[in-house]
């Protein structure tokens, strides 16, 4: 459990980092929080000859709100724990903070980064789930190239993304659905009338999810669902966005029957296989249960508890 030899580069700026990557790719790896990469190195499951450490690169650690687009904006090196504790994040999107609480343990979130989790692309991970749910996008930079990708295009397969070896994920944006777009005097956005639900099933607290489901619902005064988003982690090689299920919900009032039908459609949208943690059959069942529970939680959250206090 010792890593193979590698060259270590610690750039101070993004330009230096990009130049180093360009020079050394495809044999270089970016080091962020190290919570996934370092174990892989120690098991010698990855053997890059160069590590480009982003920890000394300035300007990648801010959390901001883009009122125009109603987006939460994270620099790639924002630590998961800082995002979880950020008043901005908690105010704009309590769902985001709640989901982050499920990422490993505090010690891991203290080091692990937003960008690292997205780039690592574990299909059971919470951040990729959020990117899919909140119509998020990531900015990928390399020397002479700058592109944005949404979740659907970014996540390719299990632990695989569209990132090229010379690219760095520098920023991630998550759209927080806001009914009015109104911004409070504190500068914290106050989206209204959206409710959220988040349900995760893992064997132990802090483990990767066997399955996790997040949902955002908008229910109008008449009690009808006007808008719905549902995403699943652990439902296939990439995070799953269940659009057919979402459509089924729209136009109806919440009911046990409706949610069961939605759960059925979400499960149908997943591609699960047997693994050491669960059979496909059981995982499908879990996903269905979690969908129902997340939807019920969203309803129970009530209007005082909507997405964004």
């Amino acid at each position: 459990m010792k890593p193979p030899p590698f060259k270590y580069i610690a750039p101070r700026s993004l330009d230096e980092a990009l130049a180093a990557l360009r020079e050394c790719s495809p044999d270089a790896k970016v080091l962020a929080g190290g919570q996934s990469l370092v174990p892989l190195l120690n098991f010698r499951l990855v053997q890059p000859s160069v590590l480009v450490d982003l920890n000394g690169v300035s300007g990648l650690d801010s959390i901001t709100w883009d009122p125009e687009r109603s987006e939460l904006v994270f620099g790639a090196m924002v630590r998961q724990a800082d995002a979880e504790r950020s008043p901005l994040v908690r105010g704009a999107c309590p769902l985001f903070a709640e989901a982050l609480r499920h990422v490993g343990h505090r010690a891991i979130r203290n080091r692990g980064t937003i960008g690292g989790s997205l780039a690592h692309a574990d299909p059971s991970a919470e951040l990729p789930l959020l990117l899919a749910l909140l119509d998020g996008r990531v900015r990928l930079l390399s020397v002479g190239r700058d592109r944005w990708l949404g979740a659907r295009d970014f996540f390719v397969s299990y632990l695989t993304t569209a990132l090229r070896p010379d690219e760095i994920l520098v920023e991630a944006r998550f759209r927080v659905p806001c009914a009015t777009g109104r911004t409070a005097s504190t500068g914290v956005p106050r989206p209204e009338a959206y409710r959220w639900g988040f349900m995760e099933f893992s064997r132990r607290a802090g483990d990767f999810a066997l399955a996790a489901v997040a949902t955002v619902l908008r229910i109008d005064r008449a009690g009808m669902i006007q808008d719905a988003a549902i995403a699943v982690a652990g439902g296939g090689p990439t995070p799953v966005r269940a659009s057919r299920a979402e459509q089924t919900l729209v136009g109806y009032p919440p009911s046990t029957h409706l949610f069961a039908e939605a759960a059925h459609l979400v499960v149908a949208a997943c591609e699960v296989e047997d693994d050491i943690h669960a059979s496909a059959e059981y995982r499908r069942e879990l996903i269905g249960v979690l969908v129902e529970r997340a939807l019920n939680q969203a309803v129970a959250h009530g209007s005082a508890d909507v997405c964004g206090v």
Partner: protein
Amino acid sequence: MARVTVPPASVRETFVGRSVQRKEDSRFLTGAARYLGDVSLPRMLHVAFVRSPYAHARVRSVSLEAALGLRGVVAAYTGPQIHALARPIRTPFGAASYRETDYPLLAVEKVRFAGEPVAVIVAESRYVAEDGVGLVRVDYEPLDPVVSIDSAIAPSAPLVHAELPGNLYCDERQEYGDVDTAKARAAYVVEGTFRSQRSAAVPLECRGALARYDAGTGRLTLWTSTQLPHVVRYGLAECLGMPEDQIHVLSPDVGGGFGNKASLAPEQVVVSAIARDLQRPIKWIEDRLENFLASSHGQEERIWLRLSADIHGQFLALEADIIVNGGAYSIFPDTPLNELLNCAGCIVGPYKFAHYRYRARAVATTTCPHGPYRGVARPPANFALERLVNILAARMRVDPIDVRRRNLLSAEDFPYRTVTGLERDSGNYREALELAVQRLGYAEFRARQAEWRAQGRYVGVGVACFAEECAVGTVKRQPRKLYSIAGYDGARVRVDPHGRAIVFSSAAGSGQGHETTLAQLAADELGIPLEDITVRSNDTEVAPYGMGSTGSRTAVSSGGAVVLAARKIREQLLLLGAHVLNESRDNVAIRPGSVYSLRDPSRSVSIQRLAWVAHRKEGTIPPGFEPGLEAVAFYDPPAYGVSSNAVHAAIVEVDPRTGRVTLLRYLVVEDTGRMINPTIVEGQVKGGVAQGVGKALFEEVLYDETGQLVNASFMDFLVPTARELCRIEVEHMETPSPLTLGGMKGCAEGGIIGGPAAIGNAIVDALQGRAEVYELPFTPEKVWKLVRRATPDSPVL
């Protein structure tokens, strides 16, 4: 026997019985402890092992050339090369059907489990050694693996060892009494096949060894993280062809053992052989992956059990067919038979059975060798028996508590020896159950349970009763031919001229608090304050010969030796005190700090003063009194050991839709005899309970059908954390053993024993008895399947 309340420390004069703070804690808690990894020697080299990726394969060739060409690599050895320096491990065992096999130090010709060492690279650093491992080329010819118990006994199974027809390490049969006649009176006969998963002990500090050979004296020193320094030395001497006295085995602080460090590892022999060959210190620190793959696993058993009872639920007879998955090699010194025969012996439980018969087999498979893990055999045995008792109760339509009430050993029964030769010397078997029932609020719980059910909540209660055999002496061991295991323990007590004492003990602690408990025992005998006593152990050079710390034996066995050695010094202090006080020997006594005159207690002389005199610094000593204050003693525990007893009770909630089992309450009522230190006892109990909960709900070493271990990391091997546990309630009862010095019994293994059965019974209770659980662990998926299967004709929901 009545419940003993422990008086508060302030009113007690003795150290024994008090929850004094652990002497070792400050160094552990401040990071000042020193483990094997902290030991470093000049000119030291490091090794890394090339390990087989296959479960079963012929080794056609091993090429070390590329590795030897790497800068920093100093040497490398294959199986044949290492066996030119040392012999394979062999473990005799006295059982008629047992067949001995070689446990190679590095594979020769064949590998028999994934992770088996095939070659070793010696280098300037562990990093370079691992780089070297990557350059070794091994040509394997894969063979069919044999992974499970069922596949090992299949008629067409490939043979793991040519010397073991039918893949059987042994096949033992035994009958006590007359089972068939007894069964003829049975009104109820219940049976089931119960499976206990493969467990891993996962001590936080993995194993490791650092060997230094001194060419000048021909002596070998091995620093190694072990629970049995003398056993390791015995085994090393045999493998290396050296006399035992030329080998010194010692451990720095040991970061947990739980049985995982109670065997001789091939790696320990390999580093010793290389140190002697290269005449440079050689260090191996096992990493977590190696520990999972290739140290030892425990408690994988398939137990078929049949229980016959009369119309009142009185037990009549027991029949068992037990199979242990012994893995690829017979481990030293336990062999798979330790698990197997312990299971066959202890499965009679805390009950009386005059009629019992068993068949007991240990099979060879292409998996990691099977070794001891905390509780050895008792968690699986208790799981099978206590589940079956509940099944009987369900059949009889009576509460499971009542069946136990009818059958548990009672005060009139003691001393009772089971037909299998286990000593139930004393205890509180029935009283513990009643106390558990009371503490649980059993009747109220049953009422609440019905309410919860009406609300759609599935909450259940389960209990498990057991006796914990501990501290077996040499007599019962002798027929087993386990010559490497002493069976007794030794202690040396030395009082220095300033009146401070050092206790040298053959115990080998791995975190239990021996430095405190053994000092407490010595303090009471010597009249020396606890803070003036230190305990040294885990070292063959400082300790008298003895066994070490496994099998819940240290309080009784090493404790007994400490008491005996301290009594010798006590006698010297009394003689000397009488001389100084001008009294006869019979007219003086010892009290904390001094020897005093019984006729005039105001006349006394301090222990410090006596120590000073004894060492001839000043004053006179009686004629014939040897200078110095030092004594050695050995203690052989009762021939058939002694037994602690306990009741474990769990209250769980089952989520019928996900199968998740949540612990709501966990209660332990235990009687471990005289407690030296109740806080330490509680620590032992609670730590054990956490492991029992792990065994019941989380932990399982998983091999796929090709023999690959698929969850060899803490990400996938699920040890419960504080967040998966609930508060553990512990109630002590204290019945001193009439057989041991000081009345102590053992408490190191009990904590883990009751969890699987108590939690299993609680799950079944939560599901209203519509499903039975036979297989550990109860994962959410398994429970979910049970719920679903229960649905058609007996709907749970």
